[in-house]
């Protein structure tokens, strides 16, 4: 446990190697699924009024004339060499486009995730102290709402109230159009644009973190070692945060890690509603325009991200709980 960090390094390496077939599988399934969908990208790319020759030229250019298995083999090989191909629409390398959008999504994700975890866990701790108190009932009802309301609907309502009616915050985007702010002014501008999408995004995950933590915490507070902690004369706050919360967090971390995939799905919705220039909106747009290489590229990068986050969640859980062995 303590001392050598070698077991951890080996564990991470093994987990990463184990992830390779998973990524290949995901790429394969997505490749097949997307070719099964109706519609021809060359026609779409050329536009409604393009002549036959233009369409044929585009087909040739993007290799769409090759047999499916050739397209697949070529694609796999390229993915392996980290070349995710060229986007039909943007006429630029997929990797470049996705990596360009990734920081925007990460900003939204990290802020929302941080917000939902901190607030969700804090409220859960206050609720679990006195289950069924007025505070607990209020918080639990609000969490139930956050859990049930569709993200896109909540987003639109937030725009309606805070942008259209009150005019306090921008309706979408990441920067003010006419702004050419720099430094702190730019940070403030982005923050203003971030508030609504982050709120819509965080509502669900905060509700989930709250419900999970509250349930686990109430259970943990009945454990025998909590009585030991009280026997020692510790304050209730110390008992709650020093002893109970840490124990309750172990399963919460695991579940939140697993649900990271759901968060990506949320990113598509929220970024589309708020015109946030991130990977989620890029994914939505590439579906609409049948930009296969771009869509597949996003899938690969996102699934890799999910795998990495799951691994991180397992590592954090192992860090919190010494009983989890790296094997």
């Amino acid at each position, binding site marked *: *446990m303590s001392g050598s960090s070698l077991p951890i390094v080996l564990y991470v390496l093994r987990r990463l190697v184990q992830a390779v077939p998973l990524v290949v599988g995901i790429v394969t399934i997505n490749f097949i699924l997307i070719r099964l969908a109706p519609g021809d990208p060359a026609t779409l790319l050329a536009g409604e009024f393009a002549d036959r020759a233009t369409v044929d030229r585009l087909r040739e250019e993007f290799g769409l004339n090759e047999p499916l298995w050739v397209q697949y083999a070529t694609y796999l090989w390229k993915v392996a060499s980290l070349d995710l191909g060229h986007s039909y629409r943007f006429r630029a390398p997929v990797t470049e486009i996705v990596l360009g959008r990734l920081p925007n999504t990460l900003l939204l994700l990290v802020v929302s995730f941080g917000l939902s975890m901190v607030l969700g866990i804090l409220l859960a701790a206050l609720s679990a102290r006195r289950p069924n108190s007025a505070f607990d009932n209020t918080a639990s009802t609000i969490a139930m709402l956050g859990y049930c309301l569709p993200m896109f609907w909540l987003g639109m309502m937030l725009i309606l109230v805070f942008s259209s009616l009150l005019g306090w915050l921008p309706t979408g985007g990441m920067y003010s159009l006419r702004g050419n702010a720099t430094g702190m002014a730019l940070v403030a501008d982005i923050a203003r644009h971030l508030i609504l999408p982050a709120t819509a995004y965080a509502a669900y995950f905060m509700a989930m973190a709250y419900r999970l933590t509250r349930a686990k915490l109430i259970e943990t507070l009945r454990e025998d070692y909590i009585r*030991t902690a009280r026997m*020692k004369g510790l304050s209730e706050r110390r008992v709650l945060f020093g002893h109970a919360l840490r*124990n309750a967090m172990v399963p919460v971390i695991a579940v939140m890690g697993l649900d990271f995939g759901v968060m990506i799905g949320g990113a598509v919705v929220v970024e589309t509603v708020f015109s946030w220039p991130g990977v989620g909106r890029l994914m939505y747009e590439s579906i609409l325009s049948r930009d296969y290489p771009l869509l597949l590229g996003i899938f690969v990068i996102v699934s890799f991200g999910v795998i990495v986050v799951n691994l991180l969640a397992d590592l954090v859980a192992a860090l919190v709980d010494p009983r989890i062995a790296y094997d």
Partner: protein
Amino acid sequence: MSGAGGAGGGTLLAVEDLRLHIDTYRGTVRAIDGISFTVGQQESVGIVGESGSGKSMTALSVLGFTPPGARVVSGRVSFEGRDLLALNDAGMRAIRGARLAMVFQDPMTFLNPLMRIGDQIGEVLVTHRGLGRREARARAVEALRLVRIPSPETVAGQYPHQLSGGMRQRALIAMAIVGEPALLIADEPTTALDVTVQAQIIALLRDIKEERGLSLLLITHDLGIVAHVCDRLYVVYAGRIMEEGAVRTLFARSMHPYTAALLASVAYDEDAGGTVSFIEGNVPNPIDPPPGCRFQTRCPRVMPVCRRMQPPRLPQGGDHAVYCWLHAPELPDVRD
């Protein structure tokens, strides 16, 4: 109450007429129904009874740990001159771990699985003495050495799951004594352990009591342990005391039929075909118990008066007292 016997003199803990009721859907359970006992300075006192007799509940209510739904209906718990039942939460916290500490039944579940042993022990000193973590850890190692844990430095850095049951119970004892309390309450401290380990833990408790000059209140169902460790003994049954006195006296000439039955059930009787003697009948329903003596439903020598009136405390000289009509100088008239 007679004065506390035993080694040290003055009374440290005095519980008077403690009554604790638990409200359930089926009615009010009289878990503790008027129990009085004392523990003297540096004295070792045992409370013996079977499961459900209220002995653990008594220990827990001294520390202010009453289960949900339970309320102390009456009684006084005075410890070092203070009424613990009248203390607020902060006052109670200042005493817990510092003056009054407890060792619980199951060492497997009473240690925080995510915290190093040394930190769990040191936390007592961080809380009560304001020590820094480093110093607290050093004192924790000392406490581990006191409970005879080999290589205490290593163990202080380990987690509970890395220790055996006996080691964990030693760690819990270290946690209880590190704050140098005046009274250590041990609630069935050996029940969850292997027999060989049980003997070690009992010996350890006795040694520590002597070395540290503290008082010990031992809650157990095991008369053998009491014989090894305690000066005085209270026999409880269904929330009431049946008999009390010096261990020697009670073992030599118990006067209550329940004490006699308990003593008989300890012995493994080779002559009787290797059977273990047990007490016939059932414990009375703690919801609406019958009037009179609690042991009437199982007592081999039950009399009409036992079904009507609760027997008074009958002093038998010294610390010895019995709650049984058999030893009353004259019986009240209970004819219908």
